[in-house]
């Protein structure tokens, strides 16, 4: 692959290279579809249609199967997502200790509803059924960081620390 002087294309190329490397790793690997999708989503941030088409072709399976798997699991996304993923826990322990109020506070702070992304792509807001930090409920995850013992008034300050 030839190097390009244009900065924008260079980024695309490196994405593509990473994607091709990923496909090579899992091409002959039994049950490789989900790791490939996870890897591709790590690279692109979501799963665009042409990426899914390439995966179907390279792994030699119908596009319908790839699409079926993507839409089955909560982790896969067909639309672009924010730089920071907020996951508010609404599991039993958080439910009992006021997780819904945390969700409401975050929604008000960001001006979006759960399942949505802010216009500047800074945050995507999601809910999750349990992140296993019930001892610290109510809690939420931002990217891979878990925040516990939240109260509706303090969540704004936490969100502001994420660029």
């Amino acid at each position, binding site marked *: 692959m030839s190097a390009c002087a244009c900065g924008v294309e260079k980024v695309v190329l490196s994405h593509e290279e990473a994607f091709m490397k990923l496909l090579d790793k899992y091409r002959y690997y*039994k*049950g*490789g*579809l*989900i*790791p490939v*999708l*996870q890897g591709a989503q790590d690279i692109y941030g979501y799963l665009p249609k042409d990426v899914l088409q390439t995966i179907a072709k390279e792994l030699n399976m119908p596009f319908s199967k790839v699409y*079926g*798997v993507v839409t*089955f*699991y*909560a*982790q*896969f996304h067909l639309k672009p997502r924010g730089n920071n993923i907020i996951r508010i826990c609404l*599991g*039993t*322990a*958080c*439910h*009992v*200790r006021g997780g819904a109020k945390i969700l409401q506070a975050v929604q008000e702070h960001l001006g979006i509803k759960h399942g949505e992304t802010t216009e500047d792509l800074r945050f995507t807001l999601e809910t*999750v*059924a*349990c*992140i*296993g*930090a*019930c*001892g*610290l*409920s109510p*809690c939420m*995850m931002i990217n*891979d*960081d*878990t*925040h*516990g*013992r939240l109260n509706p008034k303090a969540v704004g300050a936490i969100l502001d620390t994420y660029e």
Partner: protein
Amino acid sequence: MNNLNDLRTKCQEEYKQKLSRPRIVVGLGTCGIASGGAKVMEAIKEEVAARGLDIDIDFTSCIGMCYREPMVEVSLPGAASVVYGDIFPDKVAQLLESHVENKTPVYEWAAIQIPGEATPYEGIDIMEKAPYYEKQVRSVTSRLGRTNPESIGEYIATGGYEGLEKALGMERQAVIDEVKKSGLRGRGGGGFSTGMKWQFVYNAQGDKKYAVCNADEGDPGAFMDRSVLEGDPHAILEGMMIAGYAIGADEGCIYCRAEYPLAIRRLNLAIAKAEELGILGENILDTGFNFHIRIKAGAGAFVCGEETALLNSIEGQRGMPRVRPPFPANSGLWAKPTCLNNVESYANVPFILRNGSDWYTSMGTDKSKGSKVFCLTGKVNNTGLCEVPMGITLREVIFNIAGGIQDGGTFKAVQSGGPSGGCLPTSQLDLKIDYESLTAAGSMMGSGGLVVMDETTCMVDVAKFFLNFTQNESCGKCTPCREGTKRMLEILHRICDGQGVIEDLDTLDRLSTVITKSALCGLGQTCANPIISTMRYFRDEYMAHIVDKRCPAGVCAALLVYTVDAEKCTGCGACLRACPASAITGEKKQPHSIDPAACIKCGACITKCKFDAIYKA
């Protein structure tokens, strides 16, 4: 066969050396990190450097007292170790000055002490005698909060891989017999005999067999598996290797949910280190036994905790359950005989092999042997992780270990078994915890989450919460679950909105029976349990919603009436300005009133009122 004696002696020497030095240890499990443990670690490093102290800084996993996180342990040679709770960065300087420099513990921050051979300090609870630990036994959780989970040396020094060594010196059938004799039953909630399961896989015909670990802990309110994965990852590997040897498998797979990034990282690290030492991989300990373990990260689907759905997911398919039989023991992963156990089940195995099945059967009840790890959450004072012998009562767990109800509230119900379990009322508090008695009472063991509820929790709302969960997570393959959960949820919504009719209860009853009997997998077969158990024990509350149009716990918004207490109202007007529906009227400095017809029950007025003059009922 090579043994690990030389390596173990070396590890023990190193470990002893480490324990003889002054040490400060921070709890860095997910709960510790979430409550600020990483920042405390930074503060300690800075403070130690600034003061020029000669002290080792280390980390460990969760000791179980989540309610006291972040926790820090200070251990000086010849003195008892003290574990401190609620140590935030601003307390670090004082802690180091007092305990490390002046050798005086900060008594008011101390949670427990572990004296070892040293003289205990006066006025600090000794771990085994502290209210939180007194009724606990610690075997599966024995290393949690005590060793560094990323060090294979400490695992080996504390008896790790002894069970594997012992197993490899035994006949395969003898290993299975030992596990059978121990009476270990599936800790994921099913309660099937682990030894029997292994026997089926051992007997099954196949050129290739697999040992799979179910670490897709999806039950809301449960984090036992996460704690064990993060705190003692080698125990899972060892348990899987013993299973692999016994059933004749050379490949293992851990299916871990993606929501546990730290667990996945520590497992990967553990695998790499075990391979490096030749404990995992080809020709283990020169016995000719090969075993490889890989990790498969889940992709976010609760139903994948069901064993056949999990296998489909590993194969790269949609995680939908398969029709059983054939059972995985005969036709599992890639249609090969597969032994599938939960994290906690595997984690028990090394202890059983090392200490013998007699030791294991000495704990527990007639049919449920050993110990079980539970997560205490909800409206209790002490939330956290505990390991108790089977047969302990719910009362002991909730009132002794968990320290009773938060804010002086009254106990109302305890929910066990996640979305498949049920809610048990006060009358069941003296129930002995084992598989059979929990099922008879209308709940189930489940994976081990215990969510405690007080008077402010509405049981109809709780049933609705669980149905909402199962309805979302139903994979849609079989009709009873796909359509049934939807219909039941609609009815519960109706009841909570004050639109319920008395016939709804019969419909719920009938639907529950039909779904339980006809659904394809465990998710569907048990999804009605929260409804059945709440209707059995809290029928009054359903009646109050349906007949009186009233929510006794004050939760169901549509049934609440907001009223101003004229005695307390000062007429400040804060509520009037906050009301988005303009339902509040009143002259300045005169008591206000709320028009129930216009009120949208958003609660904004209550939040704004400084005089507690608005109440809902």
